[in-house]
């Protein structure tokens, strides 16, 4: 559920069509987008889940699956 929502945010922000696959292994760094887009996508993910991801966490995420895991751990610890 967390990953699907994140994938939706990324797909919508980048106007990606359905033919482009987004998997938990997909990394924002590999998507040929610049740092401004990465920041904006993270902000949209934060808005979507109503949480704030600390800046230092961002460097630890290897892919979208890691972001989903992190959000899951935060949400389910509340």
């Amino acid at each position, binding site marked *: 559920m967390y990953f699907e929502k994140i994938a939706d945010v990324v797909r919508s922000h980048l106007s990606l069509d359905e033919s482009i696959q987004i998997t938990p292994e997909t990394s924002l760094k590999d998507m040929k987008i610049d740092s*401004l887009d990465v920041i*904006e996508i993270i*902000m949209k993910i934060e808005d979507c889940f109503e949480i704030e991801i600390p800046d230092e966490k961002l460097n630890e995420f290897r892919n979208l699956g890691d972001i989903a895991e992190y959000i899951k751990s935060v949400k389910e610890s509340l």
Partner: protein
Amino acid sequence: MSGSSEKRRVAVTGMGCVTPFGIGRHTFFDNLIAGNPAVSLISSFDTSGFKTKIAAEIKNFDPDPYFPKSETRRMNRFTQFAAVAAKDAIIDSGIDLEKLDKNRFGIVLGTGFGGISTTLEQHKILLERGANRVSPFCVPMMIPNMAAGTLSILFGAKGANETVSTACASSSHAIAAAARLIQAGEADVMICGGSEAPLNPLVLAAFSSMKALSVRNNEPEKASRPFDKNRDGFVMGEGSGILILESFEHAVSRNADIYAELAGTGSSADAFHITSPDPDGLGAKNAMKSALCEAGISKVDLIMAHGTGTLANDTTETKAIKAVFGENAYKTPVVSIKSMLGHTLGSAAAFEAIAAVSSIISGVIPPTINLENPDTECDLDYVPNFARKAGTKIVLTNSFGFGGQNSALVFKAAK
């Protein structure tokens, strides 16, 4: 700048625009010739509580057929306008970008307000949701130089890249600056002109507070009435006008269709008041005189007026024209296309330049519409209400910005 033989001549070889009439110079000029007003009730935001509820809006603008969404979503509306107008102008010019020396291909654009809608949207987010919710795209979308910067990226133009902001004269000064780079041999091809997207509640309220805007809300199409006795202010508009300037040598070498020559430019300051024009029109007069001097001429076939429809502009501009041309002023058609397009501020002069060159190409002078009862102090030939056939060869355009910053351009038929 005075006329000297060593300066390279500057050709106009392409024109593009995004206006309330649509995209492209033919649509633009056909509507001007038809005397069509672009002014209507504002639909993009709620004008309850505003004295002025009208503008010349570009409705249903969609940049997506021209550029991928991945590019346009990072652009403020004024940059989107400029990008589409520039693409239109480049296509019109027939230039093959692949064959250009990109280091001698530059851009100078004018804008008054830049990406102000982004500034306002993000300020609202700052106040309502906090500092951490402000978009990382806020700065690149709001800064006024980003239209010129974006165009360089889109078209690979690696030469001079500048932005001019002189309020309502911005795009005239931008065209002049681009011409100087070509004259000086620093560039072969320049994209120039201006873009403005000022239609938001703040700018409307701000001009309204100055009593600068027409409040003829019950008759929007009749609200912009330059030189008319019953004019009551200007009507805001939006859009982008772009010209491709090129050295004659470069244009000839690629067999380009040269629409006109930009033969003279003039720039001056009123040094009088932050918003009111010098009542004697001295700054306006000096700008016109220096443009004519550089072009080496004393008479023109048409004056594309600043003609805003404010009480102060139209009388002082008329006075300044008389001071420059003497008795000939009465024999020279003076037109305000703002009567149809409203006042698009930082892009207004680019539209007037395109209209001037279009008049040279077609031999037709567009009208000043809504001129029913001329002001007694406005007693020149303003080509009231109906277009006129004339062998237009030389056109002077006038642009005057708040701050008393004036610019004039002289276009003439290319021989």
